[in-house]
C-alpha cells in the first residue's frame, strides 16, 4: 500500500509539473504585461526597471524554475491589475468558493443518494418514475438558467433570500466564514442549490443505476435466499457494493464543482475564486489566471488521491495481499 501511495504521489507531482508548464507558458503568449501595467508615456528606463522587478529579463528556464519554486511556496507573483500578491488575493477568495462547493456537495449527496436508493428499490413506483423525469430535466437544463430562475422566484417574487453576495462573514484567522451568520447562511442557499442541482440529478441517476445492478447480483439473491431482512440485504449488502463507483464520480464531480463554481459565482456575484478568475481574464491578469489554473489542478489531483485511498478503506480485496 505504501508503494501504491508513493507511486501515486510521483504521478501527481508529474501532473502538477505539466500544469505548471502550461500556466507558466501563458506569461509568454498573452502579450507583454509591462505594456498594460505602465502608463503609455512611461520611459524606457521605467519599463526596464519593471521588467527586472518582474524577472522578465531572465532566460526562460530560470523563469520557469523561479515560477515553480514560488508556486510550491504558494507565491504566484504580483497581480498586474491590483498590484497585490496573488497568493493574498486567492487566500481572501478561497474560503468563499470552498464553502459554496462544500454546501452544494452536501446538498447534492443528502438529496441524491437517498433518491437514488429509493428509485432503485422501487423501480416501478410512480414516485421513482417522477424522480427520473425530473432528474432528466435537471440534467439537461443549463445551470445558469436554473440560477436565474431561482433568483426570480425566491428573491424577486417571494423576496425570501438575497440574490447576490455572501452576506456577513466572520473572520476565523485568515478564513472568512459565512456559516456563522444568519445573512451568510441565507445568502448561501440559492448559489449552493444552483451549483448542487445538477449534481443531485447526476448522483441520483448514478446511485440508482449502480444499485439496481448490484441488486441483481448473485450475492444479493443468495442473501435473500438466506432469509435476511430486506433492510439487511438492501443496506447491509447492496448499498456498500454500490458506493465504490459512486465515490469515484462524486470525487471527480467535487473537482469540477470547484471549477464550475465560476458560473454560479458570476450569476450570484459570489466573491470567490471563480469571480476573481473571470475578472482576471477580462484584464489579462496572467499571474492570477495561472495561479487559479495551478490551484484547480492541485484540487483535482488531491481529490483523486483521496478517492484512491478511500477504495482501500472500503474494499478489503485491495488492502490484503492474499
Amino acid at each position, binding site marked *: 500500500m505504501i508503494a501504491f501511495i508513493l507511486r501515486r504521489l510521483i504521478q501527481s507531482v508529474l501532473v502538477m509539473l505539466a500544469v505548471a508548464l502550461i500556466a507558466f507558458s501563458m506569461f509568454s503568449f498573452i502579450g507583454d504585461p509591462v505594456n498594460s501595467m505602465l502608463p503609455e508615456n512611461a520611459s524606457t528606463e521605467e519599463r526596464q526597471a519593471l521588467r527586472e522587478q518582474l524577472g522578465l529579463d531572465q532566460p526562460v528556464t530560470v523563469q520557469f524554475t523561479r515560477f515553480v519554486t514560488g508556486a510550491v511556496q504558494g507565491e504566484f507573483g504580483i497581480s498586474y491589475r491590483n498590484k497585490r500578491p496573488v497568493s493574498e488575493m486567492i487566500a481572501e477568495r478561497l474560503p468563499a468558493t470552498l464553502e459554496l462547493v462544500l454546501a452544494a456537495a452536501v446538498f447534492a449527496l443528502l438529496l441524491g443518494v437517498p433518491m437514488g436508493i429509493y428509485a432503485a428499490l422501487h423501480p416501478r413506483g410512480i414516485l421513482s418514475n417522477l424522480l427520473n423525469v425530473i432528474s432528466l430535466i435537471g440534467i439537461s437544463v443549463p445551470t445558469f438558467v436554473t440560477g436565474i430562475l431561482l433568483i426570480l422566484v425566491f428573491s424577486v417574487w417571494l423576496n425570501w433570500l438575497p440574490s447576490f453576495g455572501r452576506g456577513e462573514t466572520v473572520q476565523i484567522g485568515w478564513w472568512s466564514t459565512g456559516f456563522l451568520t444568519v445573512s451568510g447562511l441565507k445568502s448561501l442557499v440559492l448559489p449552493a442549490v444552483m451549483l448542487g442541482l445538477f449534481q443531485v440529478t447526476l448522483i441520483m441517476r448514478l446511485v440508482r443505476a449502480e444499485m439496481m445492478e448490484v441488486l441483481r447480483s*448473485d450475492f444479493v439473491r443468495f442473501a435473500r*435466499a*438466506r*432469509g435476511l431482512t430486506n433492510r439487511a440485504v438492501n443496506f447491509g*449488502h447492496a448499498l456498500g457494493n454500490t458506493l465504490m463507483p459512486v465515490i469515484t464520480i462524486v470525487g471527480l464531480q467535487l473537482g469540477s464543482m470547484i471549477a464550475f463554481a465560476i458560473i454560479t459565482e458570476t450569476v450570484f456575484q459570489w466573491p470567490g475564486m471563480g469571480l476573481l478568475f473571470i475578472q482576471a481574464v477580462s484584464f489579462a491578469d496572467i499571474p492570477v489566471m495561472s495561479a487559479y489554473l495551478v490551484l484547480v489542478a492541485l484540487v483535482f489531483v488531491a481529490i483523486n488521491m483521496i478517492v484512491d485511498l478511500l477504495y482501500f478503506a472500503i474494499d*478489503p*480485496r485491495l488492502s490484503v495481499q492474499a
Partner: protein
Amino acid sequence: MTSSNTPLLSVRDLSICFDTRHGPLRAVDGITFDLAPGEILGMVGESGAGKSLTGTAITGLLERPGRIDRGEIRFEGQRIDTLSAEEMRRLRGRRIGAIFQDPLTSLNPLMTVGQQLIQTIRTHLRLDPGAARKRAIDFLAEVGIPAPEARIDQYPHQFSGGMRQRVVIALALCAEPSLVIADEPTTALDVSIQAQILDLLKRMCRDHGAAVILVTHDMGVIAETADRVAVMYSGRVVEIGPVEKVVRDPRHPYTLGLMQSIPRVGSGVQRLTQIDGAMPRLTDLPPGCAFHPRCPRAFAECRATRPAPLPVEGGHVACHLYQGEPA
C-alpha cells in the same frame, strides 16, 4: 413413493408464467411431485426446462414478471405459495435453504465470511453474538474449512472456489433448514472438486436431516447423489422415479436420449447418440407432447394430445407409449 407419512414438500400442478408484451408465457406447466423428509430429489433437464425456476418458486423468490399462476406448494403440510413476503422471508434460510451455482459471486465481497454467517444465524436463531460466532466456527469446521477460528475473519476473496462453495453450504445450513434447494451447486467448480462438494453436500444434509432438491443438467451427478430423479422437458416433468430405475431402465424417450448421451468407459460405442434438434421455444410450443418433434417413437396421438402422467413402477411417466400398459 411409498412413504406413508406426510411429505416434507408437496408440489401440485404448479405453473409459472411470465407476463410479456405478447401475452403470458408459461415456463413451468403443471408439475407435480412430493419430497419425503431427508430425501434427495434430482431435477434434470436442458437449459430452460424450468428446473431452476421451480426451485426459485419454492423459495418464494420469483421476480416479476414471473409469477405462479396455478397450483400450490405445501411445505410441512402448510401452503407456502400464498404466504406474505415477510412470512416467506422467515421461512427462507430457517426452514428452506438455498445453494447457488457460482460460489465466486454468491458471497458479498465486502463482508468477512464470519460476518455473513453470524448475520444469517442471528436472523433466524436467538443467539448472542458470542454463541453465534461459536456456531459459525463449528459450521466452518464441519464443512471442512481448515483453521476455522482464523478463516472466519477473512474475506471471500481469500478463499478458493471450492472453499467458497463450502462456505456457501455452511451458510445455507447454519439455521438447520429441513429442505435445501441446490441449484447447479457444482457446475462452476473444477471437475476434481465437484465430487468432494457433492459428498460434502450429501453428508451435511444427512447429518442435519435436510432433504435436497438438486437441480442440475448433469445426469452423472444425479446418478451418484440422488434418491429419486425428476426429468423435466419444456416446463413439464416427463418422468419421475427412483434413480436406479430411471437410470437403468428409462421409460420416456427423452430420458432414454439423455442416458444415451452420457459417455461410458469401455462400452465400445464409438459415437455418442444425440437427441436431434433443440427444445422448443416457449413462444411456439408444439401441440400435444412437447417432445414429439424430436421423438424417434412419436405417433399420431403424440401430435394431438398432451400425455398425462401415468403411474409406473415407483414413479410416473408422461408418454403415450405406455398408455395401454398396466400400472
